[in-house]
């Protein structure tokens, strides 16, 4: 069992990623609105807000996707589909994906 987190910077990819999750049978998923750390620090600090104006960067909002993955091959399948769908997490504007082991899960039987 694993938990996967995607911090998706390119929100236009959300539909393809959601479809990939469903295609792999990964249903225990929550999609949250998020913002990058830069956004938070710009707003709270007059020095950093000046830097934002200097660099002209847009506030980095993102979608954070948290998924429970019951079987390891589901993660492999998901990454394969992302690759085939040209979703490339090595590109700077796509986002990041990570997973870590899950030692405990409790939910209704039909959720798996």
């Amino acid at each position, binding site marked *: 069992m694993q938990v996967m987190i995607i911090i998706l910077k390119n929100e236009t990819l959300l539909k393809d990623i959601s479809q990939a999750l*469903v*295609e792999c049978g990964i249903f225990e998923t929550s999609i949250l609105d998020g913002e990058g750390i830069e956004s938070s620090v710009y707003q709270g600090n007059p020095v950093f807000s000046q830097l934002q104006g200097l660099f002209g960067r847009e506030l980095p909002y993102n979608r954070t996707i948290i998924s429970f993955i019951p079987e390891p091959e589901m993660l492999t399948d998901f990454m394969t589909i992302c690759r085939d769908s040209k979703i490339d997490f090595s590109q700077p504007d796509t986002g990041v994906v990570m997973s870590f082991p899950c030692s405990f899960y409790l939910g209704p039987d039909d959720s798996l």
Partner: protein
Amino acid sequence: MIQLSQYINSETLHVIEESKHDDVLHRLISMALPDYPQQVHDRAFAEVAAKGDPRKIHLGNGFALVHARMNDFNQIGLALGLFGQEIKVFKGEAVHTLLCIMIPVNMSRTYMTLLARVSRFFSNPEVQAAFASADVDAIIKHTFEFDAV
């Protein structure tokens, strides 16, 4: 991951001569549920033919599907009707391929997974061309290639 070849193969692909809505549905339902009695076919037909958009879905690129969720069976039944040309089977765009999918009530998630996989499969222009020309051999070849990735 679901193997598409389990659902799209020589037993589920059918070249359809009929063009009338009811005739097409009757034929595909009987092929999607080959091991079930006529009463089940009739109930499935009533379910699919009932007025209402959710049971008939245009998928784009010449594909459409009809489906029904029922308690009468315990596995997903599927049949694909290939018209070999674009025809108007029901309201909306003309289609060259009609999927008929019968879903047990307790397999909704499996169905969603299957649909997601089928949608990605159908997005390939070579696959679209194979279905549009009702080329069963090419469709089966593409299905195996898709599963092999």
